[in-house]
């Protein structure tokens, strides 16, 4: 029982991680607090639905189409809307406030557009109707795939961040934005790329999500909030922290549900969130 609870928790946490990685990159490097992030996840789900039902491709191949769309879309978004904001803002605080307001509007725009095109009801398709048995825990294969995706993407990005020049520049901007410019890092180039990458990752989350659950245009906010809690817990811009925080969240939710009461999962989530904010406001894994 405990073993299967751990497995369920890790898989749930893995899915949360998949959703949160993109946001931590967007917020950490591009410094855009993207409240429309969840809508981009859902956009990815709807795009997958279209590709799967219109072309008959399987969702994995759809990923190869949808993720680049997410990248291009976010790239354009940054260039057209965010960059002027970034240029105008005098400090980080102002950029955050401005980006919150702008992406807040964007949230409605995307949600409304999706509702207009697809209607407000549930959309979904069936695929990969399989369950895997991991140490006695029967769990949907598509969810396991989602969790594995998160780990692979997380690990790849982590290595890139640590080992490449590109990654070093990204980290420089994330941790010491005011100094990065002195060592010749083109901040807006990297910010644009980071925002687009985050957008692509959001749509990857959407692809995985669509594999196992029906979705509606209004589901996005839910993912934005989950992702926000996770990236703040893990330390903004901190990849490893994000993944660990997501796994902790998944484990806690599952354990509280199994051992205490399912009604208290939310309370537990916010209790952890609050304790992190009180004792380690910079995040679990960031140096102050």
């Amino acid at each position, binding site marked *: 029982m405990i073993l299967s609870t751990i497995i369920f928790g890790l898989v749930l946490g893995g899915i949360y991680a998949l959703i949160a990685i993109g946001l931590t990159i967007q917020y950490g490097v591009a410094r855009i607090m993207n409240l429309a992030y969840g809508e981009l996840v859902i956009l990815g789900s709807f795009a997958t639905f279209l590709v799967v039902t219109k072309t008959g491709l399987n969702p994995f191949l759809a990923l190869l189409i949808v993720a680049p769309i997410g990248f291009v879309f976010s790239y354009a978004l940054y260039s057209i809307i965010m960059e002027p904001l970034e240029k105008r803002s005098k400090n980080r605080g102002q950029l955050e406030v401005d980006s919150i307001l702008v992406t807040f509007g964007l949230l409605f725009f995307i949600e409304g557009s999706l509702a207009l095109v697809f209607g407000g009801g549930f959309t979904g398709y069936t695929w990969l109707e399989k369950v895997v048995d991991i140490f006695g*825990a029967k769990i949907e294969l598509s969810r396991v795939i989602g969790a594995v995706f998160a780990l692979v993407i997380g690990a790849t990005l982590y290595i890139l961040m640590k080992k490449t020049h590109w990654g070093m520049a990204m980290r420089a901007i994330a941790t010491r934005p005011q100094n990065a410019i002195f060592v010749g890092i083109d901040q807006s180039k990297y910010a644009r790329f980071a925002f687009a990458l985050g957008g692509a990752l959001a749509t990857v989350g959407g692809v995985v999500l669509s594999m196992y659950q029906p979705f509606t245009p209004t589901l996005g*906010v839910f993912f934005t909030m989950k992702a926000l809690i996770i990236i703040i817990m893990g330390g903004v811009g901190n990849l490893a922290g994000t993944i660990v925080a997501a796994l902790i969240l998944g484990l806690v939710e599952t354990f509280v549900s199994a051992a205490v009461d399912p009604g208290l999962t939310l309370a537990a989530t916010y209790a952890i969130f609050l304790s992190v904010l009180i004792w380690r406001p910079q995040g679990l894994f960031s140096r102050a």
Partner: protein
Amino acid sequence: MGPYRGCETISICYINFCKYNLGRFAMISINRRTALKAAGITAASVTTGLSSFAQTVAPIKMGYIISKTGVNAPGAGTTTIPNYELWADDVNKAGGLMMPDGKRRPLEMITYDDRSLTEEVVRGVERLVQQDKVDFILPPWGTGFNLAVAPLLDRFGYPHLVASSLLPTRLDPIQKWKNSFWFLGASEEYAASLAKAISNVGTTTNKQVALLSVADGFGIALAAEMVKALEAAGIKIVLNKSYPIGTQSFATLLSEAAASGADTFVACSYPPDTFALTKQARLSAYNPKIFFTGVGTGFPIYPQINEGKVEGVMSLGGIDASRPTMKAYIERHKAVTTKTPDYWGSPMVYTSLQMLEQAIARKGLDKAAVSNEIRTGTFDTIVGKVKLVGNRTPDNWLLGQWQNGVFVGVEPSNLEGAGKAVIPKPAWGG
């Protein structure tokens, strides 16, 4: 129908709060304009569509405000809005609404979006009454929203036809709001009918139930009634747990239910949970003798996302699919709205509109007379002849079961067209 609404998490509440407050800044300048524009477009489309009428006969104005966006949109978009559109289309294809003098008048529909905010729905109804001066108002979607507008409609004297909310426990509509009419019955009736179905099959089940419920209006109320009705029938509840809205994984809860020893599974759930629970149960081959889930089970997408493998699943509602008017309704619904109706609320929404239409044909536009006619008259509808008793439909499908691709009503078993409950349900699969 439950209020599948509100706060998916505390944080969504916060976002909704922000939506509301930020929305207000924009609304002062934008909303009035867009609303006017929208009204203009509506009027324009009606006049172009029915130009010959519009010049000679003034249209009958109706309006509704409903959740086109926000957390309630999926429910409203499945059960209610398509029926409003279908009905308006049916009426205008017939040449308009029949009046007592035998002449037809075109129907003009004014619609607003409440963005899933109760404050908005109240304001919208006031607007429909005071500015748009509509002749009749169609109700919003969901328990909370209907309860929010009930006092208002009562005060303005409009008939209120509620087909997307259970009657709150032990509320006498005639006492409370004289002109409110309830088309879905009350939660205690649904609970009692499930208890009856379990009792009917004697020792086929071990008379033990695992009960899950979503911690929100509908789930709390229905679960409470379930406990009462089941225990009264000598059925033991061996697991009783509630979970918060927005729960993402039901794996642990289902393994607990499976381990509880109960062979009847009951979930008073909302659509996303209903879908997730069913899928998890099906894929992990958890196959209790009775598998009962809440709102969403009767939705057209339910069999689709389960590859049609939902034979034997039970839920609230159901239809009599053998009735020709019902078959014709389903076909028309598909053709006009490109969607399949849900098998619980949808037919009752359409039924309520048919009753309104016929009451207008008999009494004209006098709201009090129309209300009185709805209360006392007999109407010919897609679910057969309907005469309200105590402002409520006396014969509702309380328990349905998926049988051969149709969600058939099985309780009350004495209703015309009732299917026979299949217990134990067959295995998921094939």
